[in-house]
């Protein structure tokens, strides 16, 4: 196991979080996509760092895949989808939680994840102890983004953040369990994105809007 400057770890973790806050704090779809792209690039870098630290060469493949799929393909697909959608406003006009509050709550969630992770015995693994709280924070913030937004697109972005958190989490804790499972997870997520894109199409066609607030026909009253 190679050693590495703790600063690099900390700084990369901070950039990851900042990129995530970019999604929370902005209201335009393209801004989110850019933030996501940035996040993915940093994630790929982090993956590389983990690969370097653990010395497992498979992780470099994962890093490359991350770089390609997450920072190139998925943003492309989503841009393509949004272009095809004949919807005028591609921004979050009326979120359930105002952006200011959202940022504060996200900050709380970051604190919460650090608080929770303290419980886990990490055997003083610097990589794990740096990135694990960040990954949980990503996960929780992603979830919060989905909860607080009413545009279907932002929910997809939220899913993507969650998924990034997951990726980082599994990576840090397992150091790449086995390629097979890692691939399986990748494939699942990719298919998920494809399916949600199809659904986005259908929603915009059927409801003439990407506002999730319109999807309230199925309820009990």
């Amino acid at each position, binding site marked *: 196991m190679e050693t590495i400057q703790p600063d690099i770890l900390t700084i990369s973790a901070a950039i990851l979080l900042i990129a995530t806050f970019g999604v929370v704090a902005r209201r335009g779809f393209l801004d989110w996509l850019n933030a996501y792209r940035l996040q993915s690039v940093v994630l790929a870098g982090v993956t590389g760092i983990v690969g370097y630290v653990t010395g497992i060469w498979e992780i470099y493949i994962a890093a490359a895949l991350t770089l390609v799929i997450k920072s190139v393909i998925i943003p492309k697909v989503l841009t393509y989808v949004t272009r095809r959608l004949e919807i005028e406003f591609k921004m979050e006009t009326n979120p359930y939680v105002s952006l200011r509050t959202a940022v504060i709550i996200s900050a709380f969630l970051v604190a919460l994840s650090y608080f929770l992770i303290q*419980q886990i015995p990490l055997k003083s693994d610097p990589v794990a102890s740096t990135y694990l709280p960040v990954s949980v924070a990503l996960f929780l913030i992603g979830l919060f983004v989905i909860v607080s937004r009413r545009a279907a697109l932002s*929910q997809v972005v939220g899913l993507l953040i969650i998924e990034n958190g997951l990726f980082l989490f599994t990576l840090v*804790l397992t150091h790449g369990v086995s390629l097979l499972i890692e691939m399986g997870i990748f494939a*699942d997520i990719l298919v*998920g994105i494809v399916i949600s894109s199809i659904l986005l199409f259908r929603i915009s066609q059927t409801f003439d809007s990407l506002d999730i607030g319109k*999807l309230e026909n*199925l309820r009990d009253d």
Partner: protein
Amino acid sequence: MQLTEIFTESNTTILLLFLTPVIASILVTIFRQKRISEIVTVSSAFLILLQAFFIISRIINDKTMSAFGNTFYVDSLGAIILLPISLVGFVSALYSVNYMGRQFDNGMVDLKHITRYYQGFNVFLLAMLVVPIANNLGILWITVEATTLISVLLIMLYFKQNAIEAAWKYLIIATVGLSFALIGTTFFYYANINAGTSVDAMNWTEMIHNSKLFDPNLVKIAFVFILIGYGTKAGLAPMHTWLPDAHSEAPTPVSALLSGVLLNCALYGILRFHIISSYSIGSAFSSQLLIILAIISVGIAAASIYFQKDMKRMLAYSSVEHMGLVSLGIGFGGLLGIYGAILQIINHAIAKPMMFFVSGTISQKYETKAMSKITGIIKTMPITGALFLVGGLALVGMPPFNIFLSEFMILGSGFKSGQFLATSLVILFLIVTFAVFLRHLIRMVFGKPYTEMKTNEMGNLAVIPIVILGALVFILGVYVPEQLQTLVHDASTIVSQGGSP
């Protein structure tokens, strides 16, 4: 590796089991003919049923079976889940013929949809078949996630407005929920690594072997993630919210599979980790959480059923209730409770698809799912109406039908384990459920028909699957075959004694 090594008996068995739906979906894709798709799907489902029976009978005798090294591992608990998958799979395939045929005749779907439906059906079946057989808990997660994706496609088959909405909610909620499960799984893996396992640390057999060495705090936090994750998929309240939407908007045979089988698959995930957790830190922690969620589930189901207007939504809530009862039984523990819970899994998997089939037939006949418009079924369709009654009474736990047996065991174990408050609360909810469910049921079956309707059934293939399940509902209520008793007993021993059957 030698070819003979690959094609050992167990390997071949498992391989054939997986190959059947794969081949079937390929055939469906190639021919793109309605009739051929039907025949292929039904026969593949039947073959799966036969193979599953073969595997189960082996499990009853040999207790365990593993294939491809340690990749696939079936024990009695897996066999318990395999049984409903294969059974409901077959019956659903059989029912699909009539149901989708009618949709086709009505012009609701075209050939493209039919093909897509049968493709999806087979792949769905395949994904679920992997769940109870996979030894690797990562693969378990992947296949459960895969079932979500496939079933989303099946739900939005028609692209109707409500179906799209349901599919969207289902996709988002299930994906988010399952990501919790992945975190939990990873935590367990990490615990296993920390405990010193290096090879196949994701495998159930390894985990249970080392679980005594796990770090307790890690196990606790991991189990919370698992519970929320698989609990979302299993429809435990308050994560159940997608369930009524998805189950009610899917095509009926798919609803049957979703409700009768898929929920059980997710619950199976919880069950596996519950075993690990209780083996590692004692069962008190996970049982406590399970009981809390179970009570909420049963309560919310009881409250929601009363206000339902849609028949299939009502059934979906009843699924929430039943999943709650299963986790209640597991939470109460003791041989009786776990036995009851496992029996409840099977019973639910028989009764709920039956009710979905009946409701499908009814909604095709009345051309609506709104309960206010469906009255006097016993007049318009005497056999279906009678079966609807039988199924409905079974669902609310009326003897002599099967669910009463398992519910009784679960409640008994609740008292036995000293959880008087929880049990009394659940009993109260069960009474409320009974009353409100019955109110809907009786009105639909016996009320005066709104319009003059011809008295006729909806064809043999609509009745036969229901009759098969109806007969099982009754028989299992008063008689449990000895083989099944052995199987359930072994499975509950696995749960209650942590792994070794």
